[in-house]
């Protein structure tokens, strides 16, 4: 029987070179979706195969890898992807945002600011921001080529006419480098401002749809809006019940059958770091009332 043997970080070097060429092109044309010959990976399409291929192509032996899903390092798919790279690349992994050189993410951007030595790799299900307005790839590619984004503005305008504001909560479209309209992947719009002028390189991989795109460091990323209806960041009405943060993205946890609920940071590393610094929320009262942040 043909027993399989695998290269460093799973992909063969020829495939990595092909992906790196696509990444370089993506960096050269910020926000443009570069087609690439996505490989069949040993995890299902839709479960991060694009992000995994990008990470595999850029990972070096000295890299420190962090993998998050929904902001957390301990969600099952994040664990599964982290273990995949521990096994196939033997790289050091971490849960600390500050210590990581490569961060692969699904649906969130870490709360802690990223720095210039980092790469943020997004897993992308549907890379085409115009897809739900126009299902045909041949059409949407033409619209991008001509910078013809009227359809998207009409959609946003219809929201305003109907609801009085733009009713898009996640995967909120952005314009990159004043040229391409781009899907930020299904991150909440809360995270959109973090993409703008970010010191870290941001790479986006869509495996099933076979597209890679990028935001180079310090590139302008503007959430689409109108002068009289400017983009607003989603704001929770609560603070984190564990670390008392008032400006992080919160998950809502239902705590009993009566529907009681509490809110905690979605970014677990951020929340734990704050707690270790002595911040305490309502559900996590410090043993001594005179704790550090009092």
């Amino acid at each position, binding site marked *: *029987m*043909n027993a*399989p043997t*695998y290269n460093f970080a*799973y992909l*063969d070097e020829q495939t990595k070179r092909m992906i790196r060429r696509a990444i370089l092109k993506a960096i050269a044309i910020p926000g443009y979706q570069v*087609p*690439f*010959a*996505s*490989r*069949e*990976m*040993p995890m*299902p*399409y*839709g*479960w991060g*195969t694009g992000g995994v291929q990008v990470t595999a192509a850029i990972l070096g032996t000295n890299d420190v890898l962090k993998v998050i*899903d*929904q*902001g957390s390092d*301990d*969600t099952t*798919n*994040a*664990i599964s992807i982290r*273990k995949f790279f521990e096994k196939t690349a033997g790289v050091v992994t971490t849960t600390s945002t500050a210590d990581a050189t490569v961060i692969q993410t*699904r*649906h969130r951007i870490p709360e802690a600011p990223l720095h210039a030595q980092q790469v943020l790799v997004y897993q992308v*299900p549907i890379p085409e921001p115009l897809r739900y307005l126009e299902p*045909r*790839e*041949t059409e949407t590619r033409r619209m991008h080529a001509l910078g013809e984004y009227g359809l998207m503005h009409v959609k946003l305008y219809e929201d305003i006419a109907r*609801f*009085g504001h733009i*009713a898009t*909560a*996640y*995967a909120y479209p952005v314009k990159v480098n004043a040229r391409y309209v781009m899907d930020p992947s*299904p*991150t*909440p*719009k809360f995270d959109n401002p973090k993409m703008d002028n970010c010191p870290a390189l941001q790479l986006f991989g869509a495996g*099933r749809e*076979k597209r890679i795109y990028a935001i180079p460091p310090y590139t302008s990323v503007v959430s689409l809006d109108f002068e009289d209806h400017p983009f607003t960041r*989603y704001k*929770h009405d609560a603070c984190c*019940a564990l670390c008392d943060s008032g400006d992080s*993205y919160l*998950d*809502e*946890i239902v*705590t009993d059958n009566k529907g009681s609920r*509490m809110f*905690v940071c*979605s970014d*677990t590393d951020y929340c734990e770091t704050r707690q270790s610094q002595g911040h305490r929320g309502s*559900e*996590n009262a410090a043993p001594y009332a005179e704790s550090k942040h009092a």
Partner: protein
Amino acid sequence: MYVAVKGGERAIENAHRLLAHERRGDRDVPEVSLAQISGQLSLGVDRVMTEGSLYDRELAALAIKQARGDMIEAIFLLRAFRATLPRFGASEPVDTSRMQVRRRISSTFKDMPGGQILGSTFDYTHRLLDPVLAGESMPEAPALAEAQPLAMPRVTDILGRDGLIESSPAEDADQPVGDLTRDALSFPADRDLRLQNLARADEGFLLSLGYSSQRGYGRNHPFAGEIRLGEVEVEFMAEDVGFAVPLGAITLTECQMVNQFKGTDTEAPCFTRGYGLAFGQSERKAMSMALVDRALRARELGEDVQAPAQDEEFVMSHSDNVQATGFVEHLKLPHYVDFQSELGLLRKLRKEFHEAMETPSEMQEAAE
């Protein structure tokens, strides 16, 4: 204290252990062997090889066993393995007119050189559950006859002599053949890539699309010109020795559909072709593939593209069951960050709705 998201690593390990346990089933029952799967569930193995794009009966049988009989999961396993294999090159085109035929039927001619060979088929069986098979059975040995001489012309070649059917594209060994597993696909796609996509496509998806074309959604008046099953030699051009060396024989099912074509101002009416090819004995797949191949030639033949089966972007983007199952099943992954955003938005919209209901005049103004 909230700890619900902790313990994922342990949960995964336990899930894998439980899966292995359930895969084994009742431990008092003998374990199924790869030889049993390959030999006795052979049509399942053929399907997994076809849609997995890898001709290896043993690995396909292993995949079926590992997948607990879930065919799409087995196809996925084989595909993921295939993706890691080095590429030495492409074989010479296989010549199905030199197939050692085990079954060959035509619905267009009562008889033709080489004759009709029924071979093994469910076609004329009465679908009555056979209690004999519930126990151990020892069927009669098959009836034997002399093997046919190797060359057996294809029915479409017979039609082609009179120019009644469009000719097959000429064989050109220097013309590169596309490979959508190695290069990014873009639309419009040429027929080589379309056929590769269809060969890997989900049998059920193609069956339904082919069926829809028969029911009038992109009708193309098909006849099963010929279906043949048998073994063909695969040869590889070895540059250093300067000639093609045989690598071995593989089993193929080929279907040539013969379809109506009304002609255009510059072209006389003639029959056209739809082509299907699959590993092993996969007649339903090969026939469905041929129907959809012909439907997808609408643009090339100047026909109106109106039905789903004729729409190349629709068909090729949704035919792959490994892609489809991944994306459908990824809904199982946590989405609570996005859901939280939607929840926040929905609460806001409902609040605004109810506030507007309480002050109807304002709502009217807002609408103006």
